[in-house]
């Protein structure tokens, strides 16, 4: 039973560039949430997707956007990267009646 799969595991980008991170949810899950975890801090909620729409959003600028596909997989896009966007990005999937399952994350470094 595959859990949550995130890709890539690591990447390095330059300030001002754009990046796309991908997430495949656990089988049977229909909701995907994205979190940003800066070094030494707790994960911060970015947004949540359900039925291909953004259902909730945390306190992140519009540079952060996302998408959910009909197969429930999801993408996180960040435009105009800043050094402060360097973090571990975690994807979590869930469904009603089942808890959250987290992926191992994508480590983004902005230089």
């Amino acid at each position, binding site marked *: 039973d595959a859990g*949550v799969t995130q890709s890539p595991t690591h990447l390095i980008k330059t300030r001002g560039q754009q990046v796309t991170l991908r997430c495949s949810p656990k089988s049977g899950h229909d909701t995907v949430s994205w979190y940003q975890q800066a070094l030494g*801090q*707790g*994960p911060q909620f970015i947004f949540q997707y359900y039925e291909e729409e953004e259902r*909730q959003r945390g306190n992140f600028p519009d540079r952060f956007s996302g998408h959910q596909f009909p197969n429930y997989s999801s993408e996180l896009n960040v435009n105009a990267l800043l050094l402060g966007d360097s973090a571990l990005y975690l994807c979590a999937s869930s469904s009603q009646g089942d808890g959250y399952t*987290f992926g*191992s994350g994508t480590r983004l470094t902005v230089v």
Partner: protein
Amino acid sequence: AQSVAQPEDQVNVAEGNPLTVKCTYSVSGNPYLFWYVQYPNRGLQFLLKYITGDNLVKGSYGFEAEFNKSQTSFHLKKPSALVSDSALYFCAVRDPPHSSASKIIFGSGTRLSIRP
């Protein structure tokens, strides 16, 4: 809004001794609380949750947590620590607690270090 606080950045315990990692919560209504663990370069692993019922919740790897409504606390405990328990631990709350459209809000984390 729901929130949790972890007052200790780091907890150091000798192997074989009991351990406690502290968490306090601030919620409206009945809380839905979690503990997660994170090993280096890994995602978050679920340890246990409290929804309702018995105040002592048992979870994975021998961990348990005690829910205390009067003190608004949800401390993580283990009777005998192992070196392999060394990791980063997060207390979390579901917001709103009993909705299908909820999100999880995390504390700042406590680094647990178990010395041999």
